[in-house]
């Protein structure tokens, strides 16, 4: 009220506070840190990614479709995205289980299990790939027992999935763990005291509470899987149309000095990944909205 009354009497040179794109905060240094962050993001993420698009835009449609939309490329996308989604699903289930035992139980060797979970982060991916290949090859430690059962892992799509499960495991465990720890034991006891079975408690009380975190872990594991190269090329066998992943196809183009072709495939992967991640984020926002906190 008083503001409108005095609005006409603002002395010249004293401008009204202009609308600002940030909320007022008493923590200083927003300008500096925001500027640096933006520069950093541009240098590291935005410029390299836009270069991919610019390079791709320079090639004609015919060239683009002959490389990026060829039958061989599409088979590679299908494998890359399919195997990554499958691995992320498997990780969501077993990662949740590992997070569960780490949070809910005390047992001998808990620290060791805890450390094992992070191992895929630390191990050079090539080492992991070679280890998996030698284990699951027809004459490997595990492969020799699977062979008589008619299960082939090394040099098949199945092998790709297994490697990606290994690579993506920590993401789900580490995303879910803190949220699971945050759900009090008393909430589960409350559910039980109201007559719910263990299954009902899990489905109706625990799962909804950890769903956003589980989706985060899923998305991270998936994204990591799509981009994974080092470990997969060893176990995949890299047969065109069969076990050739999209990142390998990019390398193949590069080796033939077809840089535009390489960026074309990269562009398709980028768009597909981005759409999928966006979808997962929307799903997450939806499930989070139901848990206002």
């Amino acid at each position: 009220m008083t503001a409108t009354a005095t609005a006409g009497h603002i002395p010249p040179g004293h401008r009204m506070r202009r609308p600002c794109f940030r909320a007022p905060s008493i923590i200083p240094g927003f300008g500096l840190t925001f500027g640096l962050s933006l520069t950093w993001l541009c240098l590291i993420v935005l410029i390299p990614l836009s270069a991919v698009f610019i390079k791709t835009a320079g090639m004609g449609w015919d060239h683009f479709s002959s490389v990026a939309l060829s039958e061989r490329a599409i088979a590679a996308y299908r494998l890359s995205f399919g195997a990554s989604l499958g691995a992320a699903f498997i990780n969501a289930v077993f990662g949740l289980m590992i997070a569960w035992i780490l949070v809910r139980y005390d047992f001998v060797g808990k620290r060791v299990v805890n450390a094992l979970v992070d191992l895929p982060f630390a191990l050079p991916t090539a080492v992991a790939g070679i280890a998996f290949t030698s284990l699951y090859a027809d004459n490997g430690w595990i492969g020799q027992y699977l062979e008589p059962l008619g299960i082939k892992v090394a040099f098949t799509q199945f092998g790709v999935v297994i490697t990606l499960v290994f690579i993506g495991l920590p993401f789900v465990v580490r995303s879910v763990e803190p949220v699971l720890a945050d759900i009090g034991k008393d909430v589960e006891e409350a559910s039980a005291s109201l007559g719910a079975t263990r299954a009902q408690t899990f489905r109706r009380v625990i799962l909804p509470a950890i769903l956003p975190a589980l989706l985060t872990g899923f998305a991270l594991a998936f994204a990591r899987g799509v981009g994974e190269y080092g470990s997969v090329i060893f176990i995949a066998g890299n047969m065109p149309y069969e076990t050739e992943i999209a990142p390998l196809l990019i390398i193949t183009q590069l080796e033939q000095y077809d840089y535009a072709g390489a960026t074309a495939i990269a562009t398709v992967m980028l768009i597909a990944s981005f759409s999928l991640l966006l979808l997962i984020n929307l799903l997450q926002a939806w499930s989070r909205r139901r848990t206002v906190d």
Partner: protein
Amino acid sequence: MALRLSRQGDRALSIKLDTISKNFGGFTALGNINLEIEPGEFLALLGPSGSGKTTLLRIIAGLEFPDTGRVYYDGDDITDLKVADRGVGFVFQHYALFRHMTVADNVAFGLTVRKRRDRPAKSVIQARVQELLDLVQLGHLGKRYPAQLSGGQRQRVALARALAVEPRLLLLDEPFGALDARVRKDLRRWLRELHDSVGLTSIFVTHDQDEALELADRVVVMDHGVIEQIDTPQKIYDEPASAFVFDFVGESNQVAVTIAGGEARLFDRTLPLPAGTTLPGDGPARLFFRPHDAEIVADDKAGLAATVTLTRPNSGSIRVEGKLDGLDRLVEIDVPVEGAPQVGERIIVRPTRVKLYAGRAEA
């Protein structure tokens, strides 16, 4: 299935605990607890932390299982029955609401998890939830989420949720522990009214003696895993069964004395005691009296000599704090406003009502 919130007295449960004991590692949480609880009773389990009161409540609920002993509901041995099958209402100290569900869904939970053939129709559930929310005076907040409520409101939602399954027994673990004093007082009175109108058996755990004495029909005072006394609030206050109970419940003064030849002696001199005081056997003993059970006298042979260190008003009288001569102990008494002593003055305190317990004070 109509909801019978008004009077379920005939449904209230009786409980019997038979030599319950429980150990955690090497720690004895409960040692040989025997307790019988009448149907419709409002019982308080009172004790300091670590006294085993919460463990006992959890054993009655079925959230914990005793190492030895049996639990009976209405004479049936249900010791091995899981909490989900016992049909009790349990209210947790920190509410334990399901935060991704609305208030109404929280309250409905116990009904919606029932097997299909026992589950009431949606409309029936809805009506019952509304009735319960009205009962806890939150009828307009059904669509909110727990995070949008205050502490007192959350506790009432937790209560409505527990009552939704029509329990015959309501168990409350420090139900007001996390609330501020004002809300606590309101909720206390309200819970007592609720208990009387619904007419079930209620047991609550508390470390707050005022809460126990104000609310409960009977109070069970516990310490170190054993029951010290089971009595009405009045008896607990007036006739504490042990030094611990006297010390823990209400304000008290304590003096270490020696009993010899039917007299209480302090510093080689006989301490006159009020008529009718029962003495323990010869040996060290602890003498207790309440601040309002003492007076200031002139005769220095008639009581305990002390120097006044502080005086302050205390609801209608004056609270006098003094240091006892030759003892490293304070004494607190309530005296009439007229003739109250000044700080620094020497006074003789004569207890008018005392209790003596054999043994030495713990350090």
